[in-house]
């Protein structure tokens, strides 16, 4: 889908795709630092592998399509896709996971649909979903966050974020130990049965040592929120889509909150600060190409992503569902656009449906 063609007056500024993409890359830094702090060097490895693959695929496809290679590589869009995918992958993913995911994202999800600006689906999320349904075992290899205490002692090696040499070894030659996994807060919460939320929080180290939504994960989300605020301040995107999403998610959590019974779906703060909520709200939902094009449309688009996210988290098979929610709403974005045309300058309030002329 090309960007919407609105009537004048157009804003016209010096900001280029290149500038926007650079800002996004800068804004991922706090999240990356906190992720690395809790889960080791794995995420950075993922990002490096994904970036190299994405740039190579982008160059190869551009050559095949006879487009200017340097021009498109310098707009950083492939790099942003790779970085977002790398951030979303579990830190102990084997190298071929990042390679497959970013190659699929760039070749199939981006260039087969026409390249930069024409892809109907968010490439990073397509790559993630393909990996998630193809390699569920490797995609669930999350470890316990660094510094988590279990029964008063640091947990034995095996569930803890490994050091740098071990990370390299896992990424390129496979894990020496089979059990390098631990449940994420969403996963743990989903499998709680029989305990009141309060008891569950006290008995699960992941929650007992956290403040609001699970040790480590809450800070990761806050870091991504910070990055998002930076982007908002630089006016890279408007507030409509991210706030819409957070609002949709919060309202769903509020309406379904039952005071913390054993069948609880989680409180608002739990949903806001766990899993991929903030990362999604500020880095995925705000993609200008695959979201709705008017501000009103973007608000609706974001809100519905929040609603679907809650639905799948609570009643679906997957613990987190940002990628599915985003892809579903990418489908619906043109439909939302159809009903939310912006008001044309100098005209009255626009109707709900665009009356197309016969030439269309």
């Amino acid at each position, binding site marked *: 889908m090309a960007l919407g063609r609105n009537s004048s007056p157009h804003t016209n500024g010096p900001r280029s795709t290149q500038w926007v993409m650079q800002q996004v890359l800068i804004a991922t830094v706090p999240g990356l630092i906190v992720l690395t702090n809790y889960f080791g060097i794995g995420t950075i490895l993922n990002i490096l592998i994904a970036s190299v693959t994405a740039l190579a695929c982008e160059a190869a496809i551009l050559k095949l399509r006879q487009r200017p290679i340097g021009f498109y590589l310098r707009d950083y869009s492939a790099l942003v896709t790779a970085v977002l995918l790398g951030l979303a992958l579990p830190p102990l993913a084997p190298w071929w996971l990042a390679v*497959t995911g970013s190659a699929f994202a760039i070749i*199939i999800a981006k260039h087969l649909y026409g390249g930069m600006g024409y892809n109907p689906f968010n490439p990073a999320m397509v790559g993630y979903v*393909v990996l998630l*349904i*193809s*390699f*569920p*075992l490797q995609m669930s290899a999350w470890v316990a966050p660094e510094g988590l205490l279990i029964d008063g002692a640091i947990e034995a090696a095996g569930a803890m974020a490994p050091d740098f040499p071990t990370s390299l070894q896992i990424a390129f030659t496979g894990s020496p130990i089979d059990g390098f996994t631990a449940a994420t807060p969403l996963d743990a919460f989903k499998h709680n049965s029989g305990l009141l939320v309060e008891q569950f929080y006290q008995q699960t180290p992941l929650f007992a040592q956290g403040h609001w939504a699970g040790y480590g994960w809450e800070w990761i989300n806050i870091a991504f929120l910070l990055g998002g605020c930076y982007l908002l301040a630089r006016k890279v995107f408007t507030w409509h889509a991210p706030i819409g999403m957070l609002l949709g998610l919060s309202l769903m959590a509020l309406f379904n909150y039952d005071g913390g019974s054993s069948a609880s779906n989680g409180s608002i703060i739990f949903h806001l600060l766990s899993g991929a909520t903030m990362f999604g709200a500020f880095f995925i939902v705000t993609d200008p190409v695959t979201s709705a094009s008017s501000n009103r449309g973007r608000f609706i688009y974001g809100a519905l992503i929040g609603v679907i996210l809650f639905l799948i988290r609570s009643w679906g098979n997957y613990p987190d569902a940002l990628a599915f929610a985003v892809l579903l709403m990418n489908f619906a974005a043109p439909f939302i656009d159809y009903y939310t045309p912006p008001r044309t300058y100098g005209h009255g309030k626009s109707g709900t449906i665009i009356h197309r002329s016969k030439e269309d």
Partner: protein
Amino acid sequence: MSDVSYGEISRNGLWHNNPALVQLLGLCPLLAVTGSVVNALGLGLATLAVLIGSNVAVSLIRHRVGDAIRTPAFVMIIATFTTCTEMLMKAYTYELYQILGIFIPLIVTNCAILGRAEAFASKQPPLPAAFDGLMMGLGFAAVLLVLGAIREILGSGTLFANMDLLFGPMAANWGLQLFGEDYGFLVLILPPGAFLVTGLLIALKNIIDSRQQARLAAIQAKPVKGSKRVRTTGAIQ
């Protein structure tokens, strides 16, 4: 109308008018059962049998059946052959019959078969009609096979697994294990993979066709020998 050459029929069925890649008919079974070579081959052979049988039968009755009732008549004929095939598969390859399930009876609704009955067999004598059925069926089965092979190799890391379902005990160890089960690219076994691989195959066919056309055009554009005129623009016709 009976001046269609056999060479033309085979070229049409296998390539230029391939039911799966060009006409895009019969996509439902094509997409649904090509998760492995054995499934693809089973359905391909069943479709081939029904296609030849129905083409011959339709061709035989083409002067007796009026326009008004031809479609129901064709469907009846196709349904008869499908039922026969289904019973044969039930008798000889029962396990494969169970795996393919509803897609065997659904051959009745395969538009490729009704399409050939309507477009070719109802206007041709039995022999060309039978040959057309054979070639269209082979073209369809070939695409099924390629699709099945690609999806099986990438999706589950095997090739020719479980061929004994179709060929009996002697084929029990035909299967090749190419890489570990854990590393299968599962999305290719799932429905999206069928669409993806089919789309890529169609793209590949289009590339080959356009290259061939460009080559032909280049050959035809060569100057005719003996031409004395000097031309500065365009090609000599």
